[in-house]
């Protein structure tokens, strides 16, 4: 590489301010290469307008106008208005050829650019091989919630020198999260290696950071002092650091589209000699929840290629607010192969048309925005394809070398690694093995026996008739709960029967087979063997684990009831005994409302809190401790009602408030203050403070016999004396 000293200038705000002569020099054509942003050229006060219109040397010597990273007209046009006026420059220099350059030029973007920049139609198109032969791509499921465990793992516990961390760019969506993550990572680095300069090893880079710091980061990256850089999109264009080993895209939101992702991935391993890695962490809601269609299946029995969903079925994951059409994701698994070329073309036409339509404002988002609207469909395709991800990128961008896989220097991408039957554990680059990829995880929908707890050798004792009927009740209550949940999320219509979740005869089968079931995956096998396809059903992995937990708890409880902690309250037991004499349900019997309501009540009252915890713990264990799931809302609600530490609703007018643990309810604190006091002796102010708190405290006081609604309503009226009187009256007279 040779450096050529050319008089070059970048027309930035700072440079223009520093050197007032800059425009005059430009006019005299003293600079050979002039870099400028559209804003500086086209804002209303810009002297460039004079240069454009007048006769001068610059005009005579101008050989070409280049539009670098021209794909940015697409996304920038909205918030950088000058971008839409670029065509004006062209109009003033009609004879100067115009070159638009980009690595990411899908056809729709090219025609858009042609229009915006006033380029001649037709223009020449020069393409070269776009394949990054020395980058491996891997897609990993981003853990739900706010955990950043995978990022923390970038700094291993036994790190001896910061230089051992591969040089990594981590792309995030906002400056704020870049700062926050960097702080957290610095803290970790200081814990492990206190003697190293964590400020230099971990950097941030985003547009609003000041220039000196930017330059510093850039230099530190060049001299390999900076190892982890948290950056936003401003790092993704033109930055040329040859030896970046890894690029990590942390999370996929609507702010990222296929073009920017490809640009970001392109920052890795600019030096062709080294091997780079690109990691994309995508939320589960954007990844297909079921095993993918194999490439073979796509030829024999392809899912429909469509973006339109007339039913408007939504599949919302509660861990992620962005709703995703479950059915749609199926068609995004399309692999790019020579056999399926026709299908790929059809698919891409949809994609380009959709993108174009969104730009033209044809598709306007009325009503709830769906992830398929907000997330670039090409990106969904990239995440969910079962074929090579490199091919997917190249095919989308219409590069000629889509099928030149042989140039790829390493294992290419996670899907390819599986296609080639490479050992997922040993196939790795820069500390990321294919085993962690989603392609590997989705190969087995349910936790395999390898990662779960060891199975007992002996089968359980056979189930008695009483337990069997209880199991039926439990499962039906659970089914009802799940059905309601799905209805409330508008996944299914209320008009349907709960049987759609799990048929009655299957429940009977599961209950009879339960002595042989020791693990959620066994349960799944049992369901599968009964020709119940879990993949196509409404059940998710989590639900099966849940179901297993319920069954197991009941069986354990029935086998040794005394050993279990927190026996259910007395009236609960009464109900249980009542329930146990219910006849065994017949297979085609569909439960009536009252039936299921009582069952729900039953399960809510009889399941102790410890079971929930146990179940959750087990689920976590099964999932290899990777995903820490939030407790579903319904369960939380149920658990607080089930809690045995709550006193029974008293019959007498005096009751004691028992202390609550902090985890139990959000308002626990204030109730703890009241602990041990009898309710009648409480001053009103204390009741006020606890009543004005929602949730737990109120529920607690309700258990203690207060009519919270009345009390808090009265309190809200802010009429001091009346409040005191009313609440005292309430407290005194709460017995009636």
């Amino acid at each position, binding site marked *: *590489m*040779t*450096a*050529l000293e*050319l008089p*070059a*200038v*970048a027309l*930035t705000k700072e440079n223009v301010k520093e050197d007032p002569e800059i425009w005059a020099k430009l006019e005299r*054509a003293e*600079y*050979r*290469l*002039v*870099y*400028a*942003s*559209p804003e500086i*050229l086209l804002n209303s006060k810009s002297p460039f307008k004079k240069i454009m219109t007048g006769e001068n040397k*610059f005009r005579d*010597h*101008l*050989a*070409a*106008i*280049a*539009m*670098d*990273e021209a794909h*940015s007209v697409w996304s*920038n046009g909205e918030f*950088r208005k000058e971008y839409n006026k*670029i065509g004006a*420059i062209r109009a003033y220099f009609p004879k100067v*050829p115009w*070159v*638009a*350059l*980009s*690595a990411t*030029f899908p056809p729709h973007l*090219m025609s858009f*650019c042609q229009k915006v920049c006033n380029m*001649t139609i037709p223009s*020449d198109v*020069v*393409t*070269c091989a776009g394949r*990054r032969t020395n980058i491996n791509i891997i897609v990993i499921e981003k853990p739900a919630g706010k955990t950043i465990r995978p990022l923390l793992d970038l700094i291993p516990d036994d790190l001896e020198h910061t230089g051992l961390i591969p040089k990594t760019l981590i792309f995030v969506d906002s400056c704020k999260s870049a700062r926050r993550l960097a702080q957290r990572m610095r803290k970790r680095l200081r814990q492990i290696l206190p003697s190293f300069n964590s400020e230099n090893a971990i950097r941030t880079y985003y547009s609003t950071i000041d220039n000196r710091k*930017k*330059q510093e980061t850039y230099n530190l990256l060049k001299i390999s002092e900076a190892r982890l850089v948290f950056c936003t999109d401003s*790092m993704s*264009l*033109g930055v*040329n650091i040859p030896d970046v080993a890894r690029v990590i895209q942390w999370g996929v939101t609507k702010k990222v589209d296929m073009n920017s992702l490809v640009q970001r991935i*392109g920052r890795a391993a*600019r030096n062709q000699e080294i091997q780079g890695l690109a990691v994309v962490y995508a939320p589960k809601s954007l990844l297909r929840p079921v095993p993918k269609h194999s490439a073979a299946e796509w030829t024999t029995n392809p899912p429909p290629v469509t973006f339109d969903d007339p039913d408007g079925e939504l599949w919302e994951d509660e861990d992620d607010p962005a709703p995703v059409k479950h059915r749609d994701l199926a068609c995004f698994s399309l692999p790019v192969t020579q056999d399926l070329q026709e299908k790929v073309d059809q698919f891409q036409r949809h994609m380009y048309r959709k993108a174009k339509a969104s730009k033209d404002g044809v598709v306007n988002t009325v009503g709830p925005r769906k992830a398929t609207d907000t997330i670039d469909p090409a990106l969904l395709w990239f995440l969910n394809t079962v074929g090579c991800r490199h091919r997917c990128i190249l095919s989308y*961008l*219409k*590069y000629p070398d889509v099928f030149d896989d042989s140039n790829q220097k390493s294992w290419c991408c996670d899907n390819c690694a599986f296609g080639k039957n490479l050992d997922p554990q040993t196939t790795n680059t820069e500390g990321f093995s294919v085993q962690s990829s989603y392609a590997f995880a989705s190969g087995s929908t349910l936790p395999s026996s390898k990662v779960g707890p060891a199975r007992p050798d002996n089968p359980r004792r056979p189930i008695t008739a009483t337990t069997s009927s209880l199991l039926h009740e439990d499962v039906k209550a659970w089914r009802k709960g799940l059905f309601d949940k799905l209805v409330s999320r508008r996944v299914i219509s209320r008009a349907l029967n709960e049987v759609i979740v799990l048929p009655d005869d299957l429940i009977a089968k599961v209950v009879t087979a339960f002595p042989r079931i020791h693990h959620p995956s066994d349960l799944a096998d049992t369901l599968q063997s009964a020709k119940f396809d879990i993949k196509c059903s409404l059940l998710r992995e989590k639900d099966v684990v849940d179901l297993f937990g319920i069954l197991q708890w009941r069986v354990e409880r029935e086998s040794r009831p005394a050993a279990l902690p927190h026996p259910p309250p007395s009236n609960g037991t009464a109900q249980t005994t009542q329930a146990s004499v219910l006849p065994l349900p017949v297979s085609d019997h569909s439960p009536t409302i009252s039936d299921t309501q009582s069952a729900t009540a039953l399960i809510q009252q009889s399941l102790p809190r410890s079971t929930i915890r146990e179940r959750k713990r087990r689920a976590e264990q099964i999932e290899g401790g990777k995903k820490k799931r939030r407790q579903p809302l319904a369960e939380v609600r149920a658990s607080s009602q089930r809690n045995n530490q709550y006193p029974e609703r008293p019959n007498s007018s005096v009751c004691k408030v028992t202390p609550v643990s902090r985890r139990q309810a959000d308002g626990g604190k204030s109730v703890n203050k009241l602990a041990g006091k009898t309710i009648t002796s409480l001053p009103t102010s204390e009741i006020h403070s606890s009543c004005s708190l929602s949730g737990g405290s109120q529920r607690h006081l309700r258990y203690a016999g207060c009519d919270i609604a009345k009390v808090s309503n009265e309190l809200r009226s802010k009429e001091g004396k009346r409040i005191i009187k009313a609440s005292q009256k309430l407290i005194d007279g709460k017995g009636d």
Partner: protein
Amino acid sequence: MAVLSKPAVPKGSRWVHLDYGSAMTLHQATETVIENVNGLLKCRLRDWQARAVQSLLGKRDVFVKAGTGSGKSAVFQSMIAAKENGVVLVIAPLKSLMDDQVPLSSLDLC
């Protein structure tokens, strides 16, 4: 400057007028420019880069689609050799990008 005085051109080829001398075919003009660039840099333009330069010399608008890190900037940077004291205006979206390229001011062709 190398001026090719005896153009033996196939039928239908376009004629380009460069500042360096008499009219010549597009192909020859490109050769000239590339020679120029090569002479300056002791480095060769790749085929696709030369192809893009050729189109530009023919006063045609060009889209260049090339992978990240493949040397796109060489295309417009070599256009400064298309004229005597040729100037190229580069419109780039980001400040960081410009800051990066200007202090280096290098033609990365290899």
